[in-house]
């Protein structure tokens, strides 16, 4: 054991520059990887929260509205209304259809804006009747929207999805970009470890040769190299974990959570999950290249 530890230590010292390079690459790439994971968790969270609420609003015509498939000066007739309801309910993408009358809409308006001066700016007759449509899968909204847009008596179709979609696209892109970059960097870190260990094994090839000759076990021969890369890997994991945790603490916990309350935010449990994933990747990245790099020297 003493021999193993001494060999590990001398290996680390001899390759100090390479070890530091490995730690830095590992730290940065794992941090990026963690960032990507947390972004994707956040996106999922936001999507989940909003998709629950997202519905399509199909506004019907009243006398004063124009545009859509309204006849000028006329509201949607009862027959048209029933037609619209039937059409929406028949659509397989639709989960539920509620009818919100203009009176109900007015009540809601008054409730929402009860402390605002604009509460008196409207009357019930200015509100529109509407159908609120909940979808089976909120991401497949386009079919329903275009169908509703083609129905007589529909003035306008509003879907929140089309408002959020650019945001989600952007977040998705960000998430894939960070994960993609981190994978490249992780690959670099793995190659760097393999190289470092290969060099270390090469400098110790005489010792390894003697060890094999006198019957040292493979594990015994491998252990100093494994410990060497594990030390670098573990430091890399610690560095990246601290980075990710600090980033979360200062950017989200102390900042975004208080300033943007409308969004759901990831919490420490997500950070812990990300750090676990980072640790797993980091350790695998230390062990696997080491085993591959030393294979040649251990082949009996």
């Amino acid at each position, binding site marked *: 054991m003493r021999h193993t530890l001494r060999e590990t230590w001398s290996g680390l010292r001899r390759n100090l520059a390479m070890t530091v390079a490995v730690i830095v690459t590992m730290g940065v790439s794992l941090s990026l990887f963690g960032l990507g994971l947390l972004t994707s968790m956040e996106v999922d969270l936001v999507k989940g929260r909003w998709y629950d609420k997202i519905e399509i609003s199909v506004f019907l015509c009243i006398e004063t509205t124009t545009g859509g498939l309204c006849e000028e000066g006329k509201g949607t007739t009862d027959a048209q209304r029933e037609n619209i309801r039937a059409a929406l309910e028949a659509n397989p993408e639709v989960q539920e259809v509620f009818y919100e009358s203009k009176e109900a809409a007015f009540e809601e308006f008054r409730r929402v804006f009860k402390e605002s001066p604009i509460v008196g700016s409207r009357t019930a007759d200015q509100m529109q009747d509407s159908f609120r449509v909940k979808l089976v899968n909120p991401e497949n909204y386009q079919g329903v929207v275009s169908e509703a847009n083609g129905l007589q008596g529909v003035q306008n179709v509003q879907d929140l999805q089309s408002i959020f979609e650019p945001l989600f696209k952007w977040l998705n892109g960000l998430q894939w970009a960070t994960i993609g970059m981190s994978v490249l960097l992780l690959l670099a870190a793995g190659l760097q470890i393999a190289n470092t260990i290969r060099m270390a094994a090469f400098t110790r090839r*005489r010792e390894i040769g003697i060890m094999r000759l006198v019957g040292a076990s493979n594990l015994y021969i491998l252990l100093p190299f494994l410990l060497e890369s594990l030390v670098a890997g573990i430091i890399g994991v610690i560095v990246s974990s601290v980075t990710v945790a600090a980033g979360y603490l200062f950017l989200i916990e102390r900042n975004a959570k208080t300033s943007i309350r409308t969004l759901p935010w990831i919490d420490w449990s997500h950070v812990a999950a990300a750090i676990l994933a980072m640790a797993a990747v980091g350790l695998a990245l230390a062990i696997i290249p080491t085993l591959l790099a030393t294979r040649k020297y251990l082949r*009996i």
Partner: protein
Amino acid sequence: MIMFEDVTKFYPGQSRPALRNINLEIERGEFVFLVGQSGSGKSTFLRLILREFRPTKGTLYVAGKNLGTLNQWKVPALRRQIGTVFQDFRLLPGKTVYENVAFALQVIGKSTKEIRQIVPETLETVGLTGKEGRLNEELSGGEQQRVAIARAFVNRPQILIADEPTGNLDPETSVGIMKLLDRINRTETTVIMATHDSTIVDQMRRRVLELRDGELVRDQSKGVYGA
């Protein structure tokens, strides 16, 4: 102790075998010279015993183990029963005589207490008492080979393999090394020595195996170098 049964060894990508249909048995405590020109298969013969690779055909038993079917992870245990000495000594630079010999015990997990007891004994056997603290760079060729023999013998192997141990030494020093190998042989250790040194073979009068182009052409007890 060692039994070759119709052993043939091909190296990958070569059409001619390095060893062809070798049949022989080496008993415990024998002293065997392995002679033949370079490329005749001597090294392959020794490396097969060390299980650096398996025979292509045939069966090979060493120390009671069938090397063709021996599990990969049991190879270190086999190697602990075999000591090996080379022409170029293969000592670790920057280490003292004592450290070089102790290294062989450390890496197979022997305790410091055991090492402190066994190493001086072995150094005495090979005649290096008083030189424990020397770096091997400060030693003569003969002394370095003694260190190498001590390292090979320190774990009391059943078999000692010596690949041209006197190849880099002058005749006088070689005699000393041969006396040492003979002494080790008397402890019931099987010694197999590949050599080009006809004087030594002719003087010692031990069993001689001669290889030519991978075939065993002579197996003579109390033999001479060139029959």
